C-alpha cells in the first residue's frame, strides 16, 4: 500500500515538476531560515545553563528612578554582598566582581602585552561558578592579594614551555603568582575572561568597601534551594531603603535593588548600564523568531494554496480511487503522506543549506555554532520529526479537502466540489495573509534601515573620525604637555589633547553645585576633564562665550564650559544668560589650599553625543583639572597615517619604555554601539527578501495554475476578439486585489510595531506615509511582475493551439 502511495507520489512529483519545484524550494527556503535562526536562538538560550545549581544563582541589579526616568544598573555597592551574606540565612554565598575595564599589562620575561579580559573577584568566585581547572585548586586559587588564575590561552602565551603554577606574572608592574590554570572556558558563560585576580589586589580601602553608595561591584548571590526569592528581594529592598534613603530619596528619586536570575543575564540585560556581561537582546531574539515563523507560514501557505489549486487536476484519481473502494481516511493518509514526502525532501535540502551557510552565520554573529544532523542523531531525529509535522500541517487541509470530493461529480466531469468558491476564497485569504506578512516585513525593514541610517548620519556635535587615543601611564599622566608637544612635531598630527572623558569612552559621572540665593543646588552631570586643546581636537562647537584659553590665567582654576542641556537643566535660561553664572565643584583629590573649584561659566558648547544615541544627551561640564588626566587623544590626518602611527610609536617608546603602546580609534567605539541594530537591520533585509521570495514563488505557482486552467477560456476570448492586454488585465486583476488588501491590513500593525521600537530611541526618525506608499507600490509591482509572466505568456499564445489541445 505504502509502495503504491509512494509511487504515485513520486510520479506526481515528477509529472508536475514545476509545481513540485516551487513547493519544495519555497518550503526549503522557509525551513533553512528557520534552521539558521533556530540555531542562533538556541545558542542564545544556552547561556549559563552549564553552571551547576544555576537556578539558585542571582545577580543583583538596581533600578534608579529620577527626573530623567528609570535606569537599570548592573553594578551595585560593595555592602550589598556583605549585608546579604550576614543578615539572611537563606543566602548560601555571595561573590563580587570589581567593575573595571579588564585591561591590564601582563609581563613575563620579555613577553608583555595588554590583556583586556580580566576580572577582579572575591575568593568565592570559583565556588559560585565552578569553572574547570587544568592546574591548581579552585578553593585556594584566589586567596591572598597576589594570586592570579589564568586561562589556558594565556598560559600558553606567557609560559610556552613551562608549568605556570607558582610562576610570577607582572601585572601592572606588581608581581602575582599563578595559582591556577583554567580549562577552556565554556563559550556560553556570560563573563568573558582570560585571567582573574583576587579582590585584595585592587587595594580598595576598608572604608570604601563598607559603603552603600559606591556602585562599583557586580554582585552574585546564591540562595539555598527552596528559597522564596521574591520574599528575600522585598526584605532586602526594605533594608536598602533604610540604608541609603538619605542619599537618594532627597530629590524624589528612588533606588531599588532586584535579584536577576542567572539564566536571564545574557538575554534580559540589554537595557542595563554598567554591565560587563556578554549580552544578547531578547527583543531581537524574539523578533527574529517571529520573522522566521512568518517565512515558514508563508511557505506552508504556498503548499496549501498550490495543493488545493492543483487538487482539481487530481480529482479524477480521487474519484476513481473512491469508487474502487478507497476509504476517505486512506485518501487523507495518502495525500498527507505526499506532503510529508515533499517536506522531508525540503528539510533535507534545508539541512544541507544550513550546513553550508553556518560558517557565514558564525562569522556574522561571532558564535561558533555547530550543526551536523548526520553525526548528531538526536538532531537528525528532531529534523525528521519536524519535517513530518510540517508535512502534516501543510498537507492536512488539502488532504481533507481533496478526500471530500464526491466521486459522482468527478466521474461526470464536473468540478469536484459544489462551487469552487470556497477554495478560491481560502486561497485568496492565504495570499492576503502571505502578502500582509511580507508587507509588514518590508515596512519594518525600511524603517529600521532608515533609523540606522539616521543614527549613523546624525551630526554628533563633534568629530569622531580620525581621532586616535590611548591611556597614559602614571608618570606620563602627570606631565602630558611634553609628550603633546613632541607629538605635534609630526605633520600627520593636527592637534593633541589630554584629559579624562572622551566621547564613546569611559566617562565620569559627578555633580556640580549651583550656588543660589536659597542655598546651593546639586546638579548631576557628566564631567569632562580637559585641557586647552580638547574642544579644538574633538571639533566641539562653542555657541556662546569662549573656549579655554592660555591667555586667561584664571581658566585653570575658575572656568567651566557647559553644554546646551546643562544650560537648560541648571535653569540658566538662554545660552547667553549662562555665561558668567557661578558653579562649584568638589575636587576628587582635594588639596588643602583649594578643596573646591569655584568659578564661572565661560562658554556654552553645542550638545555633543558623547554616549550612544540610545541615550539622551545629559548635562556635560568641561573643566581643567590636570590631576585627573588619564588619556591622550589626537586628531590625525588620513594621509600618511602609517607614517604618523610609526612616529607615535617611536615617540611613545621614548617617553614610556616600560609600557607598550595600546591605541584605539574613537569611531570604533561608536560602531560598536550600534552593532546589534546594524546586525538586526542586515538580518531583517535578508529574511524579508526570503519572505518575499517565498511568497512570490507561491504566487507564481498560483498564477501558472490559473493561466493553465483558463487556457481554453483565453483561447475562446481571443478568437472572439480580446486583445492581449485585455487578457493580461483579466488574469492579473485577481491577484492584485489581495495584495492591496494585504497592505492595508499590514499598515496599522507595522505602524504600531515600529512606533514602539522607535520609542526606545531618544533620537529617532518620524514614520512617514511614503514608507507605506512605497511598500504598497513595491508589493503591487512585485506581485504584478510575478503574475504577469504567466498572464503575458497565456495572452500571446496562439488560441487555435490551445483550443485544439483542450
Amino acid at each position, binding site marked *: *500500500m505504502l509502495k*503504491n502511495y509512494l509511487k504515485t507520489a513520486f*510520479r506526481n512529483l515528477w509529472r508536475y515538476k514545476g509545481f513540485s519545484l516551487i513547493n519544495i524550494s519555497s518550503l526549503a527556503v522557509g525551513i533553512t531560515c528557520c534552521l539558521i535562526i533556530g540555531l542562533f536562538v538556541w545558542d542564545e538560550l544556552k547561556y549559563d545553563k552549564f553552571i551547576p545549581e544555576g537556578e539558585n544563582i542571582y545577580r543583583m541589579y538596581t533600578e534608579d528612578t529620577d527626573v530623567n526616568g528609570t535606569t537599570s544598573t548592573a553594578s551595585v555597592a560593595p555592602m550589598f554582598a556583605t549585608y546579604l551574606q550576614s543578615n539572611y540565612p537563606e543566602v548560601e554565598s555571595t561573590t563580587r566582581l570589581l567593575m573595571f575595564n579588564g585591561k591590564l599589562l601582563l609581563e613575563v620575561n620579555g613577553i608583555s602585552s595588554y590583556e583586556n579580559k580580566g576580572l577582579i573577584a572575591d575568593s568565592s568566585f570559583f565556588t559560585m561558578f565552578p569553572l574547570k581547572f587544568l592546574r591548581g585548586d579552585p578553593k585556594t586559587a584566589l586567596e591572598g592579594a597576589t594570586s592570579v588564575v589564568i586561562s589556558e590561552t594565556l598560559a600558553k602565551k606567557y609560559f610556552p614551555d613551562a608549568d605556570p603554577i607558582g610562576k610570577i606574572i607582572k601585572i601592572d608592574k606588581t608581581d602575582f603568582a599563578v595559582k591556577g590554570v583554567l580549562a577552556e572556558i565554556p563559550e556560553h558563560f556570560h563573563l568573558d575572561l582570560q585571567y582573574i585576580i583576587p579582590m585584595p589586589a585592587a587595594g580598595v580601602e576598608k572604608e570604601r568597601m563598607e559603603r552603600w553608595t559606591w556602585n562599583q561591584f557586580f554582585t552574585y548571590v546564591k540562595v539555598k534551594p527552596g528559597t522564596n526569592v521574591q520574599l528575600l528581594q522585598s526584605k532586602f529592598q526594605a533594608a536598602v531603603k533604610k540604608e541609603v534613603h538619605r542619599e537618594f530619596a532627597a530629590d524624589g528619586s528612588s533606588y531599588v535593588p532586584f535579584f536577576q536570575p542567572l539564566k536571564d543575564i545574557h538575554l534580559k540585560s540589554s537595557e542595563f548600564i554598567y554591565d560587563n556581561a556578554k549580552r544578547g537582546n531578547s527583543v531581537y531574539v524574539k523578533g527574529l523568531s517571529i520573522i522566521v515563523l512568518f517565512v515558514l507560514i508563508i511557505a506552508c501557505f504556498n503548499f496549501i494554496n498550490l495543493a488545493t489549486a492543483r487538487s482539481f487536476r487530481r480529482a479524477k484519481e480521487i474519484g476513481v*480511487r473512491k469508487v*474502487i*473502494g478507497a476509504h476517505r481516511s*486512506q485518501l487523507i493518509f495518502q495525500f498527507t503522506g505526499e506532503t510529508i514526502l515533499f517536506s522531508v525532501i525540503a528539510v533535507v535540502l534545508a539541512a544541507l543549506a544550513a550546513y553550508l551557510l553556518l560558517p557565514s552565520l558564525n562569522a556574522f554573529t561571532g558564535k561558533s555554532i555547530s550543526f551536523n544532523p548526520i553525526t548528531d542523531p538526536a538532531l537528525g531525529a528532531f529534523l525528521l520529526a519536524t519535517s513530518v509535522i510540517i508535512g502534516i500541517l501543510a498537507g492536512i487541509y488539502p488532504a481533507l479537502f481533496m478526500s471530500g470530493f464526491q466521486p459522482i461529480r468527478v*466521474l461526470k466531469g464536473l468540478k469536484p466540489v459544489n462551487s469552487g468558491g470556497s477554495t478560491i476564497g481560502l486561497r485568496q485569504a492565504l495570499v492576503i495573509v502571505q502578502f500582509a506578512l511580507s508587507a509588514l516585513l518590508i515596512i519594518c525593514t525600511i524603517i529600521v534601515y532608515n533609523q540606522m541610517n539616521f543614527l549613523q548620519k546624525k551630526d554628533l556635535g563633534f568629530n569622531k573620525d580620525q581621532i586616535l587615543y590611548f591611556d597614559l601611564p602614571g608618570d606620563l599622566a602627570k606631565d602630558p604637555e611634553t609628550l603633546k608637544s613632541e607629538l605635534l612635531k609630526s605633520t600627520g598630527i593636527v592637534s593633541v589633547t589630554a584629559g579624562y572623558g572622551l566621547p564613546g569612552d569611559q566617562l565620569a559621572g559627578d555633580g556640580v553645585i549651583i550656588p543660589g540665593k536659597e542655598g546651593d543646588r546639586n546638579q548631576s552631570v557628566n564631567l569632562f576633564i580637559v585641557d586647552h586643546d580638547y574642544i579644538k581636537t574633538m571639533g566641539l562647537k562653542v555657541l556662546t562665550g569662549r573656549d579655554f584659553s592660555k591667555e586667561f590665567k584664571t581658566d585653570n582654576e575658575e572656568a567651566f564650559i557647559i553644554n546646551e542641556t546643562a544650560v537648560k537643566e541648571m535653569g540658566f535660561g538662554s545660552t547667553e544668560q549662562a555665561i558668567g553664572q557661578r558653579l562649584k565643584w568638589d575636587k576628587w583629590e582635594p588639596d588643602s589650599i583649594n578643596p573646591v573649584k569655584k568659578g564661572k561659566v565661560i562658554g556654552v558648547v553645542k550638545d555633543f553625543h558623547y554616549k550612544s544615541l540610545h541615550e539622551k544627551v545629559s548635562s556635560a561640564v568641561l573643566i581643567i583639572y590636570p590631576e585627573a588626566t588619564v588619556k591622550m587623544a589626537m586628531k590625525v590626518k588620513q594621509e600618511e597615517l602609517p607614517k604618523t602611527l610609526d612616529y607615535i610609536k617611536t615617540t611613545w617608546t621614548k617617553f614610556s619604555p616600560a609600557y607598550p603602546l595600546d591605541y584605539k580609534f574613537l569611531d570604533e567605539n561608536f560602531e560598536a554601539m550600534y552593532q546589534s541594530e546594524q546586525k538586526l537591520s542586515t538580518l531583517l533585509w535578508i529574511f524579508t527578501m526570503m519572505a518575499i521570495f517565498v511568497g512570490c514563488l507561491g504566487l507564481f505557482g498560483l498564477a501558472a495554475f490559473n493561466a493553465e486552467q483558463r487556457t481554453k477560456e483565453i483561447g475562446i476570448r481571443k478568437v472572439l476578439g480580446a486583445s492581449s492586454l485585455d487578457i493580461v488585465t483579466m488574469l492579473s486583476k485577481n491577484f492584485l486585489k489581495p495584495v492591496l488588501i494585504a497592505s492595508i491590513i499590514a499598515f496599522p500593525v507595522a505602524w504600531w510595531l515600529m512606533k514602539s521600537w522607535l520609542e526606545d530611541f531618544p533620537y529617532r526618525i518620524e514614520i512617514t506615509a511614503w514608507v507605506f506608499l512605497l511598500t504598497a507600490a513595491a508589493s503591487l509591482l512585485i506581485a504584478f511582475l510575478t503574475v504577469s509572466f504567466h498572464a503575458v505568456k497565456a495572452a500571446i499564445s496562439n488560441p487555435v493551439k490551445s483550443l485544439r489541445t483542450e
Partner: protein
Amino acid sequence: MIQLKHIFHWVNQGGKRVFILKDINMEVNEGEFISVMGASGSGKSTLLHILGTIQEPNEGDYFLKGESVYQLKEKQRSLLMKQNIGIVFQAYHLIDELTVYENIETPLLYLNIPASERKARVAEMLDKFQIVGKKDLFPSQLSGGQQQIVGIARALIIEPTLLLADEPTGNLNSKQGEEIMNIFKELNQEGVTIVQVTHSEKNAAYGTRIITLSDGQIEHAKNDQ
C-alpha cells in the same frame, strides 16, 4: 440479489422538483445479465450510480444480498460494496499516474489483500485478458479498447458478484465493442451478475433481460414484483 424499492431522485430547479428517477422498483436475481436502455437523459447512469452507491437517491430503499444498504453504517456499506461490486465506466477512468498492473492491483490494496496474493491475482487477470505485455504501460499509452479491458480487469480483480457497466463500449469501435460483450457473456456464464447500460440493441441482446427507462420511469419491465 438486488431489490430497489420506490426509488425517487430529483433535483430542485427554480423551486420545482425535476424528477430524474421516479418510483423505480426493480429486482435483479443472481446470475442475471440485465441491459438498461432508454433515451439520453432518461436516468440510466443515475440508476447505475445508485446501484454502485456512488450516488444516493432522495428517497427509496436498496437491498443488496438482503442487507438494507442505506441502513448500514458507512464502514460496513463501503466494505459490502468493495467486496461485491465492480464498476466499468464509459470513460474508463483509469488512474493516469499508475501503470496497467498497478491500476488493476489498486482495489486489492483497499481490501488489504497480502502482497503475494495480489501478485497472483493480478497475474491471473493479465493473463485472462491477454495484456501481460502491456502491464508496465501507462493508460495514455493504450488504445481506448485496451483501456476499457484494463478497466474491466480492474473491476473483476475483486471477484465481484455484481458487475455494473455504464456504456462500456460507448467509446469503442464495433469490433472492440463486440470483444467486450463477449467477455461479459463469458463472465455471466461464470456466474457474475451484470447490469449494463447501453444504447445499442445489439449489445443489449447479449443480456438475459432488458429494462427500458423513459423519463426516469421503468417502461416495459417484466414486472417481477
